[in-house]
């Protein structure tokens, strides 16, 4: 899978490396600021109240 993506990135090794780094950072940012904040309230281990 990653091999396939690597082969389909444009340019030589240097430009492929830069594009991959940007892709990885973008996915991390998406997870940290969009996906995780959405998922988190739906998980059970954040309960700090009684009763509710």
């Amino acid at each position: 899978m990653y091999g396939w993506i690597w082969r389909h990135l444009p340019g030589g090794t240097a430009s492929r490396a830069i594009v991959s780094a940007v892709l990885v950072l973008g996915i991390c940012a998406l997870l940290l600021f969009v996906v995780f904040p959405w998922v988190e309230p739906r998980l059970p281990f954040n309960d700090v109240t009684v009763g509710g």
Partner: protein
Amino acid sequence: MAHAHPGRGRASRWPSVAGVVGELLVTGGLVVLLFVVYELFVTDLLNEGKQSDLSQQLHEQWDEGTAASPTTPRADLTGGAFAVLYIPRLGLDYQRVVLDGTSEGQLTQGPGHYEGTALPGEPGNMGLAGHRVGKGSPFLDLDQLRPGDPIVVETVDSWFVYRVLGDVATGDLEADPSGIPGQEIVRPTDIQVLSPIPNGPADAAPTGSYLTLTTCHPRFSARQRLIIHARLDGGVIAKTAEPDGPVALTER
């Protein structure tokens, strides 16, 4: 030469399928690790910004005199910040802005006040919930509180000093003359810790002003709740009398 042997083409595809599955599993593992980093560190960083914004807003409101005073009807609080909590045992710089309400929206910003429980200084029991790990971890070290430790609440015009229950002489959190422990670990359903008299009937008439803090227990888990009970020590201290706060703020 796969095409020379019928069937070899299908067989040789298996390593690549296994490779993709393996890569997906490794990726999944990394995403879970990133989630742990998010929970433990990133939410703390985000919360630091939220708390300092809230603190600035609240103090501006207080200075302008437009804040909802806790003595005004509860409807005026509308889920916003209304008080500051100080726990000198957890650090002389420990201060957290308290919001009204205990929904996740409030608790990601700071400790939340259980709706319907007493307000600062009122007879009854003021309940506050806070996160143990992540979201600024306001209640991470509540288990370090000892009998007699001050928990100070600041409102628009007053200071209130609560003290953790228990036997101050022996340091036994269980041995308060009132029978109410300074610290207990309960099930998540044990709502009686928030009763007007902690652990009493839900509709009892209040006999004193209590403060109850709740958070999850053990750390990283929500199996149980760690509870701290404190009682108001002395009365209301007007800010006009002590603009810099009571001496309890520097007690450790």
